């Protein structure tokens, strides 16, 4: 059996060094992001930044009205205390609960007319998913800030960027500092647990029919690694692969995490009864929002994963 295909012995030691250094990197990056790509025009009280699409986004300060067209953006905006200024969200924006009472501007497709009618000072979008809407809104003269975080570090950078554009740098600095500290804390606990018990093998079942998991490049993969686990599908070659059931049986995960299906669905599967996680009952259902939404709650997801992968190590 080819265990440790993701984290070899030497690789593991190296990685823990890297992880310990992550918090410093975060702080450096925070200041780095402040230093580059931002220029304040004092006369017009405007600000120009480079967003995830590489476009220059020019915003008039102070920003009074914001429309968020992704749940993760909504969470960032509320976390920065901008909840009052958010005048439009999507149907899927369900966190924090206050967001649910905001006017809706779309579900999967955004209602461009409605956004234009609101004429917000800023729209916050997701670069990789919403290109057509971003282009249309920009053409209509509405400033659109496109975020596209791929890693936890990116999420922190995005928070800083949003802070810049909305004039909440201080709140952003405090938030990223707090998150960074929490991450560092979890890293240290995870490293201690890994040193004692090794890295449990983790399988995340995103969907059952077809069997899908979270591969390399996803937040889930990154979070599992930070929380001291080994994602058994880290060699899947794509972010959300259909995954071989027999490989799951062979790699014998110690922990199985489902995000949509009930735990029973996995436990009742005849072919999986030999799997350690099934035998020991270590099958957990985790709210997908805290594992997949690139917002501040990823840290919640991280601590939940640590508790699942290394029970008791949080205390």
């Amino acid at each position, binding site marked *: 059996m080819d265990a440790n295909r993701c984290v070899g012995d030497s690789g593991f030691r190296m990685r823990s060094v890297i992880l310990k250094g992550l918090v410093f990197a975060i702080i450096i990056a925070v200041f780095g992001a402040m230093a580059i790509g931002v220029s304040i025009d004092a006369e017009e009280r405007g600000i120009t930044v480079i967003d995830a699409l590489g476009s220059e986004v020019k915003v008039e300060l102070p920003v009074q009205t914001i429309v968020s067209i992704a749940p993760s953006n909504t969470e960032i905006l509320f976390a920065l205390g901008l909840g009052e200024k958010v005048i439009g969200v999507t149907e899927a924006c369900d966190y924090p609960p206050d967001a649910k009472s905001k006017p809706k501007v779309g579900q999967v497709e955004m209602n461009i007319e409605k956004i234009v009618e609101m004429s917000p000072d800023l729209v916050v979008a997701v670069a990789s998913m919403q290109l057509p809407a971003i282009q249309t809104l920009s053409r209509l003269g509405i400033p659109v800030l496109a975020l596209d975080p791929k890693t936890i570090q990116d999420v922190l950078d995005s928070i800083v960027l949003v802070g810049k554009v909305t004039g909440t740098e201080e709140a952003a600095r405090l938030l990223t500092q707090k998150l960074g500290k929490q991450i560092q804390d979890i890293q240290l606990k995870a490293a201690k647990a890994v040193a004692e018990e090794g890295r449990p093998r983790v399988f995340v079942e995103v969907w*059952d029919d*077809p069997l899908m998991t979270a591969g390399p490049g996803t937040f889930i993969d990154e979070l599992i690694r930070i929380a001291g686990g080994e994602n058994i599908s880290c060699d*899947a070659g794509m972010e959300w692969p259909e995954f071989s059931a*027999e*490989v799951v049986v*062979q790699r014998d995960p110690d922990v199985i995490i489902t995000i949509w299906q009930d735990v029973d669905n996995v436990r009742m*599967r*005849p072919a999986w*009864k*030999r799997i350690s996680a099934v035998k020991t009952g270590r099958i957990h259902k985790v709210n997908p929002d805290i594992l997949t939404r690139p917002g501040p709650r990823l840290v919640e997801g991280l601590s939940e994963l640590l508790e699942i992968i290394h029970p008791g190590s949080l205390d």
Partner: protein
Amino acid sequence: MKPDPVTHSAYRAKRKKSLVILTILLFAAMVIAAGVGAVTIPIAEVASILFRRIPYISKYIPNIGAQDVYETIILEVRLPRILLAVIIGGALAGAGATLQGLFGNPLADPYIMGISSGAALGATIAISYKLPSFFPGLSSVPIAAFLASIATMTAVYFLAGVSGRVSMDTYLLSGVVVSSFLWAVMSFIMMLSGDSLREIMMWLMGSLSNKGYAHVKMAFPYVGFGISVLLVMARDLNLICLGDDEARHLGVDPEPAKRIIMLASSLVTAASVSVGGIIGFVGLIVPHTVRMVLGPDHRLLLPASVIAGGIFLVSADTVARTLIAPSEIPVGVITALVGAPFFFYVLRRRKMSES
């Protein structure tokens, strides 16, 4: 002049021989599929695990496999999937051959009657509203898909039959209308449930991933029953594809025969779509290819298509689950990628042999 005994016996020998060859190929494909996968298992162990399960010869087979996990992988993961591929491949190819004969049109496929849209709607409802499962090892999706496709089949049948006499054109039209309506309902539900969009799309693409014996047990009775009915009706199909009058002149009342054939092939399609999603190309190219090689006589074409459909889908699924292991490719992608060029090759060869 005396009849030519050589042609007569040669004709029968050809039929028997082709079915025997296809059956051998099917078993070969199944054994190879059992031996190949994302996890590499030594061939001797595969043989030992498989043949120890066969009564009578089991006591002569040594248990050389030390690893329980291999046994689980072969018997619990691969085997149900292989069986399901045979059942679904056979069902789709059999239904395709039948409908091509019934409509006298080689472009007909099992999804032409709108059954798949019903199944898709059922699956969409189960996925977006997260319906709970009642059966161990079986989620609510295939069950909802099956119930919805049976409802669709009934709706199409009665909508087409309002005028008493069912013409195939009315039937087709009724299928198309019901199907468009259901796709619209489905799109609406999908739109409202942005969360499950991706999962629904994956289901629609068709997959044999992560299936167990529960799926086999669910699909087999309906497919088995439906295919048996179709095999019994094969000779009627020969006459019906020549037209209603011809069929009647040769002793087949076309109306009841067409209804039975229609319902049986819908049932078969419904059962296979429910557990496997919409797997394209099998129901179109397998019967077509078999017809080119063995001729259009449905008494040979139907059983041969069923077996060949099994061979094709087992092979395609083996490629789907090994090519980029440990990840998998939706089997519908493989059937289309392999099917379309192969189809053109057969067409070309036939053209060349004609000229």
